[in-house]
Structures are given as C-alpha cells and as structure tokens.
C-alpha cells in the first residue's frame, strides 16, 4: 500500500508539474505618521526572499558590463546610501563624470517619481536607467539575464521569489525594487520627538533650530518625510537653455515638456542631511554653509523661481548654528548600521 501511495504521489507530481514553495510575505510596520504600513505596488508584493535577492543584486558587480560596478559602488549605507562626498560620481563603467549627484536611498516607497526630475514613475522602471546607462552599469539587459542564468546561485533564488518563472528584465527590476523599498529610515532623534511629542528630547539649540526650520524650510521639506516629493526651482540658475544630453540640464521640463517646469528639481529629504553632502541636483554645494549662503544671499531670479524664495530669507549666525544642531537630530544611526540592509563580507 505504501508503495501505491508513493506511486500516486509521483504520478501527481509528474502530471501536475512541480510543487512550488512560496516566498514569505513581508509587511513591515512603520510609524503611524508614515501611514503605518510600507506601501507597495499591487504588481510587486514584497517578500523576504525578494528583498534578499534584491540586496544580493544591489551589492553584486555582476550587474555591470565589466563586472566591476554595483549599485553599492555609489550608494554607501554608512552615508544613508549616498555617495562619499564626491561632487559628481565617476565610479561607473566608463569612468566619466555623471551629470547629477547620487541621491541617498531611503523612504523610497513613498516617492512618486524617481531621479532628480522624477522621470522614473516607479521604482521598478527606475532600475533600468542606471543598469543601462553607458556611464553607470553599462549593462545590456539580455546579457545580464544570461550572466544570471549561468550563475551558481541566482537561478534558484529567482525561481523561489518568482514562482519558477525564467529570469527576466521584469523579475530583476522587481527584486531590486523590493530591496530598495525596504530601506526605511525613521529612527532619528527627530522621530523620537515625533512619536513622543516631547521637545525636552532636544537641546535648547536644537529646539531653536526646529523653529528656524519650521519658519524657512518646512514649506518644501515637509513633515514627516522632510520633503514634499515635489519639484521646485530653488534659484540656483538663471537660464535653462542647454538642450544637450537629452535635456538633462533643464530640470523637470525634460519630462513634462511644460515650460513652467524649467529648472525644477525634486526636493530632497532633509533626513540624514549631514551624511548626504554635497548638495543640490548637481552637487554644486559642498557644505551646508554654502547652502545657507545660497538661500540667504544668492537666489537667482527666473520665471519659474519658487514663490517661497521670492521673499528674502535672513539667517543670523545663531540661526545657522541652531539649524545645524537640529539637522544632527535627523541622522538615523540605526538605519546606517542596520545589518539587514547590508551583506556579509
């Protein structure tokens, strides 16, 4: 009888196809002021195995044409996944300088557009740009699929996450996106304040900095993500007529074709701001003092200049010191040391 049951079982497996082990659903809790749950698109539900696969790919130079460049070449966890203080990265395959400043990676699940001009409409589609750009990974997608298929570990990992489907551009981007979406930063001193509504957590200088921030910065660097995820011309240039490199110097106009978007770039989050120098979409300001100088004395007027910057901002030396002290409370040390985001070396 035992044999017969075994036989039936084998026949069933043979006739119905292989039984697939399902990956583990992952729905992490986030603070109530972040909405309580991590958002995810219906077409790419997060799983633990998906995050792990995305993480492996993120740190793996197999994702570049010369097998030397990974996402982590420019996105360093100890700097909230921004670059190491370089104005503009040249860590890509070609060694050429890029045109834009490497953005930090956290709280991406709440963003509605990726890149400084919001050109990528979801994290999944965003992945293809750095992968394919000749000055970044320079990686042909078909060639990447072949490399991953021939790898000792990847085929099994993809099979588990993606229901035994063959490795595809889609599955590669889904895995990357699951990992990137899992990078959530909410454990700064400022978050402690948001949770407990207790301002005694701040020093008196930090408290003053919070007030200066609320007066001058919070209109765009909005609570709780400290960005409005929108696009503004913050007065760093006067003209936006350079159409070279697929109009990369023209701001969000490049995406919308609307002249009202000339020179507009996405508001970066002020979370982890002390780790993410240099500043601006092209990394032109090396220090926060340069940034303060810009906003107080160097605003350049053009048609699309943001309304909030048309009135002069004045910061005293005390205000600047206080702002910097407040910014210290925005650094999330748990996030930058969190071992679940890194790979063992």
């Amino acid at each position: 009888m035992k044999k017969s049951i075994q036989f039936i079982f084998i026949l069933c497996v043979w006739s119905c196809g292989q039984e697939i082990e399902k990956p583990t659903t992952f729905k992490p809790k986030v603070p109530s002021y972040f909405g309580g749950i991590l958002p995810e698109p219906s077409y790419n539900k997060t799983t633990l195995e998906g995050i792990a696969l995305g993480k492996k790919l993120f740190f793996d130079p197999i994702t570049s044409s010369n097998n030397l460049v990974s996402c982590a070449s420019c996105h360093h966890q100890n700097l909230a996944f921004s670059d190491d203080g370089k104005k503009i990265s040249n860590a890509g395959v070609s060694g050429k300088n890029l045109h834009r400043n490497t953005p930090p990676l956290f709280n991406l699940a709440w963003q509605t557009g990726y890149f400084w001009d919001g050109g990528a409409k979801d994290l999944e589609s965003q992945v293809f740009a750095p992968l394919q750009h000749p000055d970044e990974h320079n990686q042909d997608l078909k060639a990447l699929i072949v490399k991953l298929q021939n790898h000792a570990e990847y085929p099994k990992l993809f099979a588990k996450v993606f229901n035994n489907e063959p490795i595809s551009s889609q599955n590669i981007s889904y895995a990357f996106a699951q990992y990137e979406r899992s990078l959530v930063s909410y454990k700064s001193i400022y978050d402690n304040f948001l949770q407990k509504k207790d301002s005694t957590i701040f020093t008196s200088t930090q408290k003053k900095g919070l007030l200066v921030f609320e007066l001058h910065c919070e209109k765009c660097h909005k609570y709780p993500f400290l960005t409005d995820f929108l696009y503004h011309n913050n007065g760093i240039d006067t003209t936006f007529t350079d159409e070279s490199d697929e109009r990369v110097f023209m701001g969000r106009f490049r995406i919308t074709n609307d002249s009202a978007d000339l020179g507009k770039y996405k508001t970066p989050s002020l979370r982890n701001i002390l780790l993410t120098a240099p500043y601006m979409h092209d990394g032109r300001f090396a220090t926060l003092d340069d940034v303060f100088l810009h906003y107080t004395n160097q605003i350049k007027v053009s048609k699309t200049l943001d309304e909030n910057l048309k009135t002069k901002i004045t910061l005293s030396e005390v205000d600047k010191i206080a702002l910097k002290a407040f910014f210290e409370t925005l650094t999330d040390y748990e996030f930058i040391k969190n071992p679940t985001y890194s790979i063992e070396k």
Partner: protein
Amino acid sequence: MKNYIAILATVFVLCNCSKEVKPKAVLTLFSENTGDGTTDLHIHGSEKHKFVTLKGDTFTVDNFKYYISNVKLSNETSSYSIPDSYYLFGYEDGDNLRESGASITGIPDGEYTKISFSIGVDGAANASTAKKGDLDPNNNMAWNWDTGYKFVTLEGNFLNGTVGGITYHIGKNENYKELSFDLPSKLIIQDGATPKITLLANARMIFSGVSDLRLGATSVVMGGPNAIIAANNYAAGMMKVSKVVN
C-alpha cells in the same frame, strides 16, 4: 494489473489537471511592413530600398517598429477585447520582429466585422516598463530616464541632396492613438479555425497625412510638438487592414 488501472484512474481524478483537448480557434494577427504602402521594407544588407515621402523627400529605413495594442473585435451585437494585447511589429536590425504574426486564442466563436486597436501603449501600461513579452524593456522600445514606451520608432537616412540620419522616437500618452476599421471581409471564429488578419503598415505616412514633416529640417523627433504632428500623421494613415483569410 487491475490495481494499477485503479491507481491510474485515481490519479486522474485526484490530480484533475489534464488540459482540454478540444481544438480552439487560433487567430493570427500579421503586419506587413512597407515604406510606401506597397513595397516591403526588407531591411537587409547595405543596399536599402529608397522611398519617397508625399512631399518628395527621399529616405531609407534601418529600423521601423511600432506597438499595436488593445485589439478588439466586434460585430453588430457584441465585441471582444483581447486581454493583454500588446504586440511589437516591425523590423529591427534587418530582422522581421514577428515573421509569423501574433497568435491569439480565447476569442469567442462568432463572426466579426470590425477591428479596433491602438498605435502605442495605453496610459496604464505606459506607467511602468518592468514588463514581460513584447513590453520587455530589452526590446529597445522603452525609455529608462522617462518611464514609458516608444510607440513608433523610425530610424534611417534622408537623401535630399545632403545625406543625414532620421530618428523618430514617438511615445508619451498624448500620442497613443485608437483606430477602428471595418474588416475587408468577415472574420469567422469557430473551433479548429486558423484565420489570419493582415495589417499593412506604411512607414512614410509618419511624415504626411495631417501635417507634413520635411526630412532635413525635421529629421530628429523625440518628443515635443513635432512628435504630436508625427502621431497625428500615424493615426491618420500609417495602418490599414488589408485582408482577412478564414
């Protein structure tokens, strides 16, 4: 032996996953790629066929690709939208992308007299390029810095005295165009049938039809007002339904 027969019978009952064997209709959607409505593009070798626009500009074609999507068949009383119908047709690097057309199953039995489809990819599908099949971003039909698909691409050279490159990459939601045609003859869908609908693509109608785009002056179009003109042109005259064979 009896035991084994019993076991086999049990297996079929238990597993219940054998597929139906009834033959279903398979519709082939095919598109002929021409430069001028009659001469096939045949993008092979160094000697390219020369075509002339309605305004008299001479050009050759290296690549010509376009998405046909959201195909719907209808008759007087009913209609059927083919789910997930996104088909990339055309030539790339000399290869006909769909030499034998797209095979479509699942169409309800009946006689159909009209077809509608779109040139391009609808807004919902155009919001992410992390897709499979004909929408796979490795088909060189997706923008990666501005998420979305190129609906129609035409690359080649113009030869009006001077020689220069032609690059037409037309996409963006405003250039998604829905078209509707009476079928030249009835399409009959029934068990076992293998009918074929042949479309005819005419590359030069990107340059004319509603407003003329002159090669030399307007040889590179990748967005903006000229893309809108090109899209109005391709909506007006690039596609035809040439025949139905049941």
